[in-house]
C-alpha cells in the first residue's frame, strides 16, 4: 500500500536523510526512531507530500493519506464535538459514534477545547485521526503529553481498529507506544554530505 524507494529529504536546504527505502502492506505499521534532529518530522512531511523529496519516490494513492503533526490544529474556541465535526466534514466523513468512547472524550463532548488539559487536547487531536478515516497514517509523535492510560488507549485504537481493518501507519516516536511493529532507526540514513542542495551551488 505504501512504498518508499531511495528517498532523500531535507530541511531548510540541509539534506538530512538519504537512501530511505521501505514498503508496507495492509495492516502493517512502521516505527521511526532516532535522536532529535535526525529528520523524523522532515521524513514524515515528505511522505505526506507537504514538502518535495530531493530525490527518490513515495508510492501511494494520495487520497488515502492522512498526516498528523504534533500541532494538532485544535481550535480553542470550538467544542470538542465541533472540532471533530469540522475535520470529518473536510475529509467527507461522518463522525463515528464510538469515537468519543474510544478516546475517552464522551464527558467532554460539549466542552470548549480551550478549557481542556494538555493531555485531553492531545486525545482530541488523536480522535481527529480516527475521524478522518484514511488508510495510510503518518503520525508525528502522537503520544507526546499523554499519560500511560491514554497511550494504551491510542495503541489499542491503532492496533484493533486501524491496522486490523487493513490500514497502514508510519509513526515517529521516541517512546515505546506498545505496538508490535518493526522499528526503523533513522541514524543509519543520516547523510554524510554536509550541505543541502541549495547551498551546494555556492561552495
Amino acid at each position, binding site marked *: 500500500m505504501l512504498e518508499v524507494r531511495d528517498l532523500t529529504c531535507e530541511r531548510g536546504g540541509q539534506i538530512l536523510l538519504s537512501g530511505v527505502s521501505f514498503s508496507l502492506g495492509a495492516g502493517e505499521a512502521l516505527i521511526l526512531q532516532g535522536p532529535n534532529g535526525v529528520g523524523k518530522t522532515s521524513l514524515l*512531511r515528505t511522505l*505526506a*507530500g*507537504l*514538502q*518535495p523529496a530531493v530525490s527518490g519516490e513515495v508510492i501511494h494513492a494520495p*487520497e488515502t*493519506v*492522512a*498526516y*498528523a*503533526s*504534533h*500541532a*494538532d*490544529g*485544535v*481550535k*480553542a*474556541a*470550538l467544542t470538542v464535538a*465541533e472540532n471533530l*465535526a*469540522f*475535520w470529518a*466534514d*473536510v*475529509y*467527507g466523513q461522518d463522525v463515528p459514534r464510538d469515537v468519543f468512547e474510544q478516546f475517552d472524550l464522551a464527558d467532554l463532548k460539549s466542552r470548549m477545547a480551550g478549557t481542556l488539559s494538555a493531555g485531553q487536547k492531545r486525545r482530541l487531536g488523536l480522535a481527529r485521526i480516527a475521524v478522518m478515516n484514511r488508510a495510510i497514517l503518518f503520525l508525528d509523535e502522537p503520544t507526546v503529553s499523554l499519560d500511560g492510560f491514554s497511550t494504551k488507549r491510542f495503541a489499542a485504537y491503532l492496533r484493533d481498529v486501524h491496522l486490523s481493518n487493513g490500514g497502514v501507519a508510519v509513526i515517529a516516536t521516541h517512546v515505546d507506544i506498545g505496538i508490535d511493529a518493526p522499528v526503523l532507526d533513522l541514524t543509519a540514513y543520516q547523510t554524510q554530505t554536509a550541505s543541502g542542495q541549495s547551498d551546494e551551488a555556492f561552495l
Partner: protein
Amino acid sequence: MIALLKRDLKLAMRAGGGFGLALVFFLIVVVLVPFGVGPEAAMLSRIAPGILWVAALLAALLSLDRIFALDFEDGSLALLATAPIPLEAVGLLKALAHWLTTGLPLTLIAPVLGLLLHLEPQANGHLVLSLLIGTPALSMIGSFGAALIVGVKRGGLLLSLLVLPFYVPTLIFGAEAVRRGGQGLEAQGALMLLGGITLACIALLPFATAAALRITLR
C-alpha cells in the same frame, strides 16, 4: 468545503477580536476626522467619500494577518494542505470568511457613518454599492498578502506595507464612484471598473495565495 467557511465564521464570532473590532475602528476613524479638519459641514461633505473609503480600507486591513496566522501556528494549515481540499479553495474560502466578517458589516454601517460626515444623501446608494462591490477585492488581496507573510513572526506591520499599494486601484474607483454619486454624475464607469478588479482578484489571486502558502509550508 463549506465546513471551513462555517468554522471560520464561528471562530470569528466566538474568539472576539476581528469581527467587532473592524467596525469599532471604522467608527473611530470617522469620528476622528472632523476633529482633524474642522466641523464645517460643506468641507466634511466634500471629503466624506474619500474618508469613508480610506477608513473602511484601513479597518479591513486590521484583521488581515489573522486570516492564516492562527491556522499556521496551531498546525491547522499544514493539516488543511494535506486534506482533500485544494489550497486555492482554502485561500478563497478564508478570504470569503474575512469579507463576511469585515467587508460586509462595514458596508452595512457605512451609511450611518456617512451621516456623521454629512455625505450627500443621494450618494448613500453609491457608497453601499461601491463598498459591496469593492471590499471583496480588499479581502482577496489581503489574503494574498497574509499568505506571503504567514511564516514571518509579527508580520502585521510588514503586511500593511505589502498590501496597501495593492489597494490603490480599488480605492480610486470606489471613492470616485461615491464622489460622482454625490455630485449627481454618472458613476457606472467607476463601478464597472471596480467590479472588474474584484472579479479578476477572485479569479486569479487564489492561485497566487495557494502558491505562497505552499512555499511557506514546504
